[in-house]
């Protein structure tokens, strides 16, 4: 159906988006690359010349580097696991007939509308505070010693906060997918006496494959750059320093733009590795 005419028109129509994004990617990327090879210390007089690969070597050999990669992947993986598993269960539940379905749905999606900064502040102060937080009151009510969430269970706490924010998103997409499932097929299976677990495993889950892929793809993009939640709660202490946060420390706290830029390049490489990995799965799943 595509004529040559419509092909060139199509290119023309794609041009603004492609050019804009190319600019958005290339200009900062080029500048980051440039800075990463220079000794750039804003507080010590700015750009002080070429240093070759020094920044790259220094960033990677710092004792903080590998733990930060691990932390990043742990947060991404943990949040994905929680949101996908709970998202599927929640979507199944919300798909059941019930009274007040609309209201429940509203309650469930609400966290998605909360700014990350606000949700981190609220969780940190009003729930996880070991003296005045609601969890502390709850623990005390049962005679237990309150947990110091942000230091003793720092990763868990951050994953919890982030997962709370993203669970609605996963649930919504999965719910939409479940609702599109052919109910006759399910009913037929039910008639045949297939137990609920089997029906879930052989009919529902395969149907959700695409939706789960989409959830994973979109969330990964956002989760790789999680920042506000860490900045507000632990500021990178107690093993919660992600690669993004490490770069933040190098660029803004240590005011070493060259070193931070090298870190930025590493982050782009990591993102691309994750992306290629994702594309492999997603690409297959998104094809018709």
């Amino acid at each position, binding site marked *: 159906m595509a004529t040559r005419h419509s092909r060139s028109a*199509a290119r023309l129509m794609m041009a603004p988006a492609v050019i804009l994004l190319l600019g958005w990617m290339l200009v900062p990327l080029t500048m980051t690359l440039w800075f990463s090879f220079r000794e750039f210390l804003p507080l010590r007089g700015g750009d002080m010349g070429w240093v070759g690969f020094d920044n790259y070597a220094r960033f990677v050999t710092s004792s903080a580097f590998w733990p930060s990669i691990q932390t990043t992947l742990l947060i991404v993986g943990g949040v994905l696991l929680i949101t996908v598993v709970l998202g599927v269960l929640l979507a199944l539940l919300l798909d059941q007939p019930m009274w007040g379905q609309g209201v429940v749905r509203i309650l469930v999606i609400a966290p998605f*509308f909360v*700014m990350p900064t606000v949700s981190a502040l609220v969780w940190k102060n*009003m729930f996880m505070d070991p003296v005045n937080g609601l969890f502390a009151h709850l623990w005390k009510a049962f005679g237990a010693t309150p947990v110091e969430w942000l230091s003793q269970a720092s990763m868990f706490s951050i994953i919890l906060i982030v997962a709370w924010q993203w669970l609605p998103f996963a649930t919504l*997409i999965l719910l939409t997918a479940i609702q599109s499932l052919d109910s006759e097929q399910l009913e037929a299976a039910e008639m045949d006496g297939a137990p609920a677990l089997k029906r879930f495993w052989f009919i529902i889950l395969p149907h959700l494959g*695409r939706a789960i892929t989409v959830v994973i793809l979109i969330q990964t993009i956002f989760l790789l750059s999680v920042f506000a939640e860490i900045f507000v709660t632990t500021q990178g202490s107690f093993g919660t320093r992600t690669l993004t946060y490490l770069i933040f420390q190098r660029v803004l706290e240590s005011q070493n733009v060259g070193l931070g830029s090298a870190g930025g390049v590493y982050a*782009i490489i990591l993102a691309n590795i994750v992306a290629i990995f994702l594309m492999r799965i997603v690409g297959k799943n998104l094809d018709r």
Partner: protein
Amino acid sequence: MARAVTPRRKALTTALAWAIGFLIFFPILWTILTSFKTEAEAIASPPKFLFFDWTLENYGVVQDRSNYMRFLWNSVIIAGGSTLLGILVAVPAAWSMAFVPSRRTKDILMWMLSTKMLPAVGVLYPIYLIFIKLGLLDTRIGLIVVLMLINLPIIVWMLYTYFREIPGEILEAARMDGASLRDEILYVLTPMAVPGIASTILLNFILAWNEAFWTLNLTAANAGPLTAFIASYSSPEGLFFAKLSAASTMAIAPILILGWFSQKQLVRGLTFGAVK
């Protein structure tokens, strides 16, 4: 569609769903409740749930300290502007990807998504320097452009998946009738894609509203949105739970209300082509 279930099962499901819904919503509810307490009651042990002296004084304090309306207005303009601008750029791109696909279409799409993976902190200095050169610091237009670029990949992708759902035959029929490309988009495609476009707008409005890195670092007195508003409350001196709650409630209320009113749209639209 409606499956026959016993009332008992329906009651059980209802109870369970409500309980879980309440649990998930609770942090927000607790924030809203706390915003109506005095500081002393906000930290009372055991915590007071509903039976306390409801007061509006925290809202008064917050309003006295900062010009809420200006932050709100900036948020509306920036989130709205970036979303609309994004739609304008994305609709033609998504159209051509969906209806005139080439071998590289998917690669381009994936490449677009990958631009979102650049860590923002890493490019703060470059962007800040560019903004100085262009005189865009602390302007709404600057933020509109940045947020549009950040969300553009998502917008393009969402629209692309909607457009793909539209059967090509309709377009061909229109073309037979002599419709030009412009007519095709304006009169045939757009009406069919309205639900998809609407939910794309909603999702991106929310994402832009909640963006807290660029909006904080590229603004000063003029263009700061609600994310900047909340940054002045994160750890004030002394007892602050109630005031923090009031500020938080004020920051999230508009988007929460908007989200609730449009949740049907959002639910329908958030498919990303995941539903066949």
